[in-house]
């Protein structure tokens, strides 16, 4: 059925219900954490969730676009690392001004996205491989630029890293969080209020049909990868703000975190269905699990992993149990 509950002015779609269930579970998990660990319940812990995962949030939002078209982008972590590396290198070695470096780095991210999108669409290379090659390339370029880890000493970065926006007595934000929220808002708006966004959904639903309906499939698909590239580059810059350093080893495995966040947020890997709000919740969930384990603080490395797995499992099972009604066809 299309609608749950009564057919009235307020209708809750099933997909919306899934997001709500996910949100509810997240809150429940947080509440449980606060009961078990007293210091857990503070506002700063919530804010920290955004601070510590800000870059992942931005990257995952970009990933959402790609997954909605039915593709996948494995290069995000590497492109983010490359952006950090470029920042560090251009600022530190070549002493270029920040106002040039940051746009340039974003452009490089977009360029990566464009390249992969172009190859995926026009040469019909499977997204998995095209972006895997992109991942190798971006990470490889990091090491070509510098094998060493580089500190970023540019005052813009160091100051940014320490800027705190007070938010009540004990809580404060970083600008990163605000950027993350802006990216979220823009992404939401793009997906739901622009033709490009709707075409992204249409392609994910059925790209052949989208083509026959006269939608600009090539442009849309390539742009989705460009958005992901842009978000990765931005995520890389945010990460550089966070760590004021760059290294080819940064953000290894981030692509899996991002994909996991998107999919846990209810987006279908086959494309065409999902919301960026879900992605935000997915990132929050991954962050919350980590936070709980940090507060637990007695687990060995392997029990940590097992615990992450079990918590993830519980969450997904509950999400599945509560969030799904029987599909009709």
């Amino acid at each position, binding site marked *: *059925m299309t609608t749950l509950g009564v057919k009235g002015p307020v209708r809750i779609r099933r997909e919306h219900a899934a997001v709500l269930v996910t949100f509810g579970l997240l809150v429940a998990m947080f509440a449980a954490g606060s009961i078990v660990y007293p210091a857990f319940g503070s506002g700063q812990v919530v804010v920290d969730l955004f601070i510590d995962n800000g870059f992942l949030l931005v990257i995952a939002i970009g990933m959402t676009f790609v997954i909605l078209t039915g593709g996948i982008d494995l290069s995000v972590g590497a492109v983010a690392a490359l952006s950090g590396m470029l920042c560090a290198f251009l600022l530190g070695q070549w002493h270029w001004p920040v106002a040039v470096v940051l746009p340039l780095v974003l452009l490089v991210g977009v360029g990566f996205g464009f390249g992969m999108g172009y190859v995926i669409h026009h040469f019909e290379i499977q997204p998995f491989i095209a972006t895997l090659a992109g991942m190798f390339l971006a990470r490889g370029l990091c090491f070509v630029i510098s094998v060493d880890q580089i500190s970023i000493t540019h005052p813009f970065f160091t100051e940014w890293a320490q800027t705190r926006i007070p938010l009540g007595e004990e809580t404060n934000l970083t600008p990163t969080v605000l950027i993350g929220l802006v990216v979220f808002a823009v992404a939401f708006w793009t997906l739901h209020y622009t033709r490009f966004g709707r075409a992204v959904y249409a392609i994910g639903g059925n790209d052949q049909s989208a*083509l026959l309906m006269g939608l600009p499939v090539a442009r849309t698909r390539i742009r989705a990868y460009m958005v992901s590239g842009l978000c990765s580059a931005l995520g890389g810059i945010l990460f550089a703000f966070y760590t004021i350093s760059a290294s080819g080893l940064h953000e290894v495995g981030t692509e899996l975190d991002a994909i996991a966040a998107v999919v846990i947020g209810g987006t279908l890997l086959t494309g065409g269905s999902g919301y960026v709000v879900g992605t935000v919740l997915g990132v929050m969930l991954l962050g919350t699990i980590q936070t709980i384990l940090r507060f637990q603080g007695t687990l060995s490395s392997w029990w940590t992993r097992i615990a992450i797995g079990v918590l993830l499992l519980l969450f997904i099972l509950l999400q599945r149990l509560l969030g799904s009604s029987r599909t009709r066809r």
Partner: protein
Amino acid sequence: MPGAVLEMIGVSKGFPGVRALADVDFRLFPGEIHALMGENGAGKSTLIKVLTGVYSADAGEVRLGGERVSVTGPQHAQTLGISTVYQEVNLCPNLTVAENVFIGREPSKAGAIRWREIRRRAAELLTRFGVDVDPGARLDTCSLAIQQLVAIVRAVDISAKVLILDEPTSSLDRDEVEQLFTVMRRLRDDGVAILFVSHFLDQVYEVSDRMTVLRNGALVGEYQTARLSRIDLVGHMTGRTLSTLEQLHVRDETARVQAEPVLKADGVGRKGAIAPFDLEIHPGEVVGLAGLLGSGRTEAARLMFGADVADSGTVALGGASVPLRSPNAAIQHGVAFCPENRKSEGLIEDLTVGENIVLALQAANGWLRPLSQAKRQELVGRYMTALRITPADPDMPARNLSGGNQQKVLLARWLITQPKLLILDEPTRGIDVGAKAEIQKLVVSLAEDGVAVLFVSAELEEVLRISHKIEVLRDRRLIAEIGNAASVTPEGILEIIANGTTS
């Protein structure tokens, strides 16, 4: 007569192993409804796809308003003023009905899509076409007929110079077809050139002004509809004089077998889909389901197969009560089901034609008992010839077949299993005249051999022609059961539907 708005000259298109179009000329004038005719696989859809740039032609040219154009794709075609409904419903299943109507040309203000406007205009358009559907419903929750209507609404609303409709009526019932024709005529009078493909000769004769006939990818000729008799048309299409078109006289032979019913449904229903109903089908009996679009025929058929699980009632197959929790359970009891939406529920496009044909039998056998190569070839060969599936290459991927041939593949798939009860949901959808008659004959002869058939079709005449008993549905409720007799006419059935009474 003004100059042709659209002209195709010497167009050829080949696919590996198939010559789909060979040096075809085609003209379309403004203010005419032009029917493109041909058997299944004649090249109609290919011609249309070349025209809209989905395929690039191997040779030949397209002229629009006298000027040579090279259409790069559907998007380009749209900007050139060609609006198309392709044969298989090509919409996005994950979007709402309203969005499917407007996507790509959403009304927007300052770059932002105006959703309210979209919903309002979509609702307006849909009501104008008499489509009773919530514009906010996801498209994949709508029946195929609704989807087809949505595609038409979309194409028509793009006010274009040329409107192409490739078998738009294959799932529609009379009323909807009439609605569509009214719109088509109005557009024609406004000077739009309309290209129309259909296998319903009645419809073609009712609405078209001229027609072009294709056979085996080659042009046969261009005719004025009024001056071409049906017999001649069929002759041009098939290249032979058709004897199979003669009326089947089934309805008199109401020799119903008084044996144990193959299927006995007792109060079977499913919330939101169809109200509980009773149904009996005996061996050798053809039971037709009649009703308007969205009346619940498909839903009823699916319940008999376990494709959906009923939430009330019991089904007895061959005398024993069987819980139909999955299609598998039904298949084990000799039930076969040919779904209406061949693209999403029937065909497996990746597999070859041969594999698609043996799939059901193989699934029933289990993977451990594969059919021997020889047996497979024999079966596939036999049914491909019997149903005249072209091209006759069992190793061709099923996606490459023309729409009608794909439908035949699905039929073959189930015939091979030699079912006791065959459920056919719109089995003649998109099938050409000759083949349709053959399929009807096939159904009749199957029934003579003792197979029970549940037959769903939007075409009342067809239902009447071959069924022994007709179940009439309205508003997802079975309202009447009538034995078929000479006195029963399509009009009579429509009346029953309208009045909700048994005559």
